[in-house]
């Protein structure tokens, strides 16, 4: 039954841009943020809150811009290289960050990401400062596409990736390596006594989550067509945590549900009033107060009772 619901949801998302073409961009962006929020959610399994994941999101988006400037002009190659770039930054930062827990982990992530943000904004000659860098439309397997066609390709590609990567992450979370994350959360010392290196478990999780954020960043970079330092600002990181919590920490779909919910809410609120921040904020308070399990919790709970 859940598989059918999920398939139906994906189908609805795939068809929505046929009804309202402008939604295609919003949905692409929502999926991109969903990937990043999924990265945050992976670490949340181990009880680690990262308020700095926008750094990997931005690092990968900047990687796309730099690679495109250096002459790489293929969607697949750009995506793979930039995700590897995000994962590499994750491996470097993770190597020392995963030794910390709780508030120290959160704050150090925040600090490192703000250093990254400041570099992007200040290295004017390299990164274009606050005006950012352009991301050109790349070729798709050698095919040079027009802008609208490329954006459709990007949308359906991200949708496909959402399903594939989502399944892969679910597989990962159900593997011993994934279960070790919850074990870190409950009793870290016991895990060490069992002979499982906590540092390695967390570093792998950290790199996976950075790569997920990187995938999101690369897609967002292509969709927006410009990379600006704001991608790495701490509010963007907070936004990702919010999406992860909003959607529900329980499972993989939660992150994407949260991202879709927040993006669509934002789009709707902006069209209504200038005080769109107020509407978004109020809705978030309501969701957090009355749906502690997140939006995904609504479905998950029903599932549990039907068993």
């Amino acid at each position, binding site marked *: 039954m859940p598989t059918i619901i999920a398939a139906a949801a994906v189908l609805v998302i795939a068809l929505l841009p046929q009804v309202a073409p402008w939604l295609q961009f919003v949905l692409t962006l929502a999926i991109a943020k969903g990937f990043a929020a999924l990265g945050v959610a992976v670490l949340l399994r181990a009880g680690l809150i990262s308020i700095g994941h926008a750094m990997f999101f931005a690092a990968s988006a900047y990687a796309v811009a730099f690679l495109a400037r250096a002459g790489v002009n293929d969607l697949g190659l750009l995506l793979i290289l930039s995700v590897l770039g995000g994962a590499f930054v994750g491996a470097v930062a993770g190597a020392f960050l995963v030794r910390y827990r709780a508030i120290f982990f959160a704050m150090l992530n925040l600090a490192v990401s703000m250093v990254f943000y400041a570099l992007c904004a200040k290295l004017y000659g390299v990164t274009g400062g606050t005006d950012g860098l352009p991301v050109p439309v790349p070729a798709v397997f050698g095919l040079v596409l027009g*802008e609208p066609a490329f954006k459709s390709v990007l949308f359906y590609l991200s949708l496909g990736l959402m399903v594939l990567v989502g399944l892969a992450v679910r597989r990962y979370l159900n593997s011993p390596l994934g279960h070790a994350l919850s074990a870190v959360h409950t009793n870290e010392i016991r895990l060490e006594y069992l002979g499982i290196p906590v540092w390695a478990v967390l570093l792998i999780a950290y790199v996976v989550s950075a790569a997920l954020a990187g995938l999101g960043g690369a897609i967002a970079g292509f969709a*927006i067509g*410009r990379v*600006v330092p*704001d991608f790495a600002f701490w509010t963007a990181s907070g936004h990702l945590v919010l999406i992860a919590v909003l959607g529900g920490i329980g499972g993989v779909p939660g992150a994407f549900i949260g991202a879709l919910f927040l993006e669509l809410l934002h*789009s709707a609120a902006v069209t209504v009033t200038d005080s769109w921040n107020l509407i978004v904020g109020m809705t978030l308070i309501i969701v957090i107060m009355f749906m502690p399990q997140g939006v995904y919790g609504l479905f998950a709970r029903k599932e549990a009772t039907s068993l």
Partner: protein
Amino acid sequence: MTSRGISIGVARCLSSLEWLFGLNRGVPQGKVRWVVDGLAGALALGVIAATPAAAQEKPSALGLGIFTFTSGPAAAYGVPGKNAADLMIDEINAKGGIRGVPVSATYVDEAQGAQGVIAEYRRLTGDAKNQVVIAALSSANCLALAPLAEQLEVPTVGWNCDTHQLLMDGKSKYVFRPNGNTVPEFIAYAIYLLDRKPDVKTVAIINPDYAFGHDAAKIFTAALKALKPDVEIVAELYPKLGSPNYQTEISRLATARPDVVFSNLWGADLENFVRQAAPRGIFTSSQVILALGETVLQRVPLPDGVIVGVLGDGWWMSPDAKAKPETVRFAEAYKARFGEYPVFPSIKMANTLIYVKAAYEAAIQKNGGKWPTRAELAAAMKGSQVETLTGTAQTRADNDGLVDQIVGVTTKTPAQQFPVIGDMVRYKGDSLMPQAGQDPLAWIATLKPEFAKSLPKPGSYK
């Protein structure tokens, strides 16, 4: 557009029912199949009928997408722009709209950042009613929207963004800017300063810490160095945008004791800086240049002799503006409705709307009275020369605008309670712009002191 999409979607769903339930196989279901087919067919016919035949027919209403800051700190400029747009659109509609078609605006808040701005741009331009978009205030947003405008082929007019990078490649077909850019805007201050204070030796710069602040510092310094090579920059300070406290920077300025303090702070930042710097004597120890100072004249008591300007010709009390009855009427109506006289972002917005209206009229005339398409509108903007509230906006071959630059110093007048701009100069728009396609900083480096001598002098614009 949306309704058309929905009906297509429903039609597709209906036809997929046949496939899903195998309606086309069994004989007993034949009738159902007929019904479904009929429904789908009827819907498809409806879709074709509802599709507008062409954009050539005169629409019943004309939509404009207007991008400006309506929340956050940048609303200090965004809201005067929005106010001016409201007023100008009311004025246009009171005179029967554009060729009898009433104009209405949809405002988009730029404070959402590039992502939200792009989403809204796509949504608005997906509707054929919105033929033109006026975007944007922020340079970063203009740069983000420019490639999109070219790809979607929507005429997009930058009303306030002034980065010189926007139209530098000279390939734009759909992006226009009937304003000057950062190059003439900040060279003008260097020339004015050297005319007014030829013996200047030391200069300090305090600009906001983002691209606009850094660009301005680079251009102003390059122009000073080219025109008077022995000038020394003794401090370059870049406080964070939106910073409430400037005491550290002011201390640096006080100890450096430069001859000149240059700043392109703006909005609430500028007000804060002036209120904190004035008691500490910065305005008496140094000649201060506030490049965007006109916007705070009505709000903070600036001392006499501060060099201020409007980044263009949009000063509502300039001699040219006062000579035009519609400008005087606009300023008074603005004051009556919003409690303050217009500031230069308001004038820039009003001028941009005049520019768009002129483009419509030119395109309709060229078309023999038929309503223009988006491409025809863009063609009408190309190379146009439009009479605005405060001067003329000439569009070059690279779509960048040429407008005059007004610079002056603050002075008192019995006619107003707040300081006004006196001892003015009005530099011709083309005299301070590099040729299309030329690298601006390389061009500035070629300037010679004789270049400044050929230009009008302070006080010449009366």
